[in-house]
């Protein structure tokens, strides 16, 4: 009976797009949504499903990309789409993939590779649903991609703190005031690093940013081609929550990467590979100062020089003291390493 639980799950072979002109023209996330002007998360949805192609099922847990995309008799989804409860994107993806597999094995539906993508926001993914995602990433028999679209707040209920909100940001739960300037003192979770480090049988984890659209789509295609449970973390500038002019969405995405705050990398079978502007940083290009990124956003308008310096120090530490720069935050243990190498 070994054939029912082997890792030889057929997947769609999705070759990477070689340049923007080679990207397919068909859209599977079209008109009919009511997201904000300048919404990067809507772009992520559009690019994600464009990369995945027509034979795809998309599941979405509660969040702004659920609520804004299904209200008042309209939906932009062309592919089958299902809402799951807030903390359950991982479990729902697993169940859907398992259901498809069982039906195909019993011959009740045509055996063909179907992409299962579950997206979740930072609240549904990094806060409430992290247990479900973690469990799904250990089930290697089922092909599913979990895409975390991270706009760094609970944007659905009007911008509250999530586990992914950066230090000091102004949200409706952390209003800065005269008596206390910084109301949110926790540092953002390192989701992609955590997922990659903690799930030995998850074969692909990547970070993406829709400012680099082709790169982003190719990461989605790679994840779906590799198969098994995979995880992608996308940083999505949010004009409403971050408080900036909607025309700057693209630029803020770029700045997050150029300042080194959000690294672009993929971990395939345990091998870390930086790409895009992050690769240039690793190869020696200077990082832009974090203040360029922070001061473009109203949510950091209350920052003083002291706060900016603190933020910069934390980002510097990501690159200078982490074992794998900007990916895995263990301090380097050179002495231990050389000792192990010597034995």
């Amino acid at each position: 009976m070994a054939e029912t639980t082997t890792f030889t799950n057929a997947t769609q072979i999705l070759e990477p797009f070689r340049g923007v002109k080679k990207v397919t023209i068909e859209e599977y996330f079209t008109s009919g949504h009511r997201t904000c002007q300048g919404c990067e998360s809507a772009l992520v949805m559009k690019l994600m499903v464009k990369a995945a192609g027509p034979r795809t099922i998309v599941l979405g847990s509660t969040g702004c990309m659920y609520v804004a995309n299904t209200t008042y008799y309209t939906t932009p989804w062309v592919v089958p789409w299902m809402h799951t409860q807030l903390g359950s994107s991982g479990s729902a993806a697993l169940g859907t993939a398992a259901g498809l597999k069982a039906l195909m094995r019993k011959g009740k539906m045509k055996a063909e590779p179907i992409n299962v993508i579950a997206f979740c926001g930072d609240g549904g993914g990094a806060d409430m649903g992290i247990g479900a995602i973690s469990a799904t990433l250990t089930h290697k028999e089922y092909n599913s991609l979990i895409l975390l679209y991270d706009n760094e707040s609970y944007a659905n209920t009007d911008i509250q703190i999530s586990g992914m909100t950066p230090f000091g940001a102004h949200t409706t739960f952390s209003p800065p005031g005269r008596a206390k300037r910084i109301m949110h003192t926790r540092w953002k979770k390192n989701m992609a690093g955590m997922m990659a480090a903690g799930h030995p049988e998850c074969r692909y984890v990547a970070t993406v940013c829709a400012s680099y659209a082709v790169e982003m789509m190719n990461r989605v295609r790679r994840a779906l081609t590799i198969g098994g449970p995979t995880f992608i973390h996308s940083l999505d500038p949010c004009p409403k929550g971050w408080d900036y002019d909607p025309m700057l969405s693209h630029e803020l995405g770029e700045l997050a990467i150029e300042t080194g705050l959000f690294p672009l990398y993929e971990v395939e079978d345990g091998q870390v590979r930086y790409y895009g502007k992050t690769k240039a940083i690793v190869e020696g290009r200077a990082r832009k100062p974090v203040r360029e990124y922070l001061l473009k956003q109203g949510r950091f308008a209350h920052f003083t020089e002291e706060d900016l310096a603190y933020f910069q120090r934390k980002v510097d530490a990501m690159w200078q003291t982490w074992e794998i720069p900007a990916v895995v935050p263990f301090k380097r243990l050179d002495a231990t390493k050389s000792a192990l190498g010597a034995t």
Partner: protein
Amino acid sequence: MATIVRADVTRELVAPWAEWERRYTQGRRLLEAGTYALTEGAIAAGCRVFAGYPITPATDIAEYMSKRLPEVGGYYMQCEDELAGMHACAGASLGGLKAMTATSGPGYTLMHDAYGWALTNEIPLVVVDAMRVGPISGITGAPGQGEFYVARYCTHGGNFETIVLSPSSVQEAFWLTIDAFNLSERFRTPVTILTDQVVSDMWEDLFIPDAYDALDFIVPRKHNLMMPFFPLGTADLDVPPNLVGQGTGVCVSAYTHTEEGYDIEEMEAQWAQTYRLVNKIRHHRAELARYETLGLEDAEVVAVAYGADARTVKTAVREARRRGLRAGFVRPITLWPFLDELFARDCHYVVCELNYDGQLVREVTRAAPDKGKVHFMGKSAELHTVAEVVAGLEGVARAGRIPELPYIWTEVR
């Protein structure tokens, strides 16, 4: 022959704040939301910890709390989900501070595990459930009353009683929140405030007394530092809550426990624990009665409603009396333990509630002397209109049944 119906009917409000309102008249008069009133009521009652998670229509409570608590030296905490929020509140209460959390139906179901834990360990805290229409996510911006039974059976396993209160105006939400904290301290149990989307989001006239310190009716937090930590087998009230971390030696366990809190697997211990959890509330039901009635002295048809829905139903009762109907009105404010005595009168009852399955009506049927005279008017996502309720009351008075009305269900199975 025209019926003569008294217009100057008696209105009776049985609730501690009837007296509080008379005694405290110095303060601010505001136009504010129900969520604001719930927040200020909690602050006035001495709540110093709020741990929660955003959910419409209770998000505003958390937002107000995140602003207000730092001002009064309290702690606001955003949790990763509702389960964590309620556990954090229970922890804060065990640590010695009054705590509250607020949510809506979907979050309330997630809290049940923590609710049972707090209930068994007699941890005082307050939970606000701003009900919206369901099931599951339903409609976020529409009122529902689907958690009447969920609030009673808010955790698994049985062997417990709960205290559930429901306000119907912004002003009442303020006083009732203070009352909920008082009850939770006195009974050492979580208290649920079952409000709904209308009461939470509605902006209304609100009086807030000037100095919260001067309110003499607030039950202060006391600490139990001595055995027995769990007075099992008794129904005593006003046992101070336990405190951990101060060398008291109390154990806090989810299992059936001894007086020290140690786990025990004996039938006698289970009996003693159940006796305490059930009877500390059952034996003091008289102290928990909070309700409003109108014109019960001569009523032939009594409309029953709670929460926001009671507002239009009450107006409808007045309108029905103007039209010559002997109509009355009952609004239970304490939903659990259920006030059976309000339904002792042998007359027709028209139960209006915001769900189609019929929840409150089942309890009224159980309590009423003649079950055949209990009628149901279920509606959902919108309050009953005055015209609908008047039509219902007239139908029952004239023909003994509720006429067919659009969007109104009358069947209870």
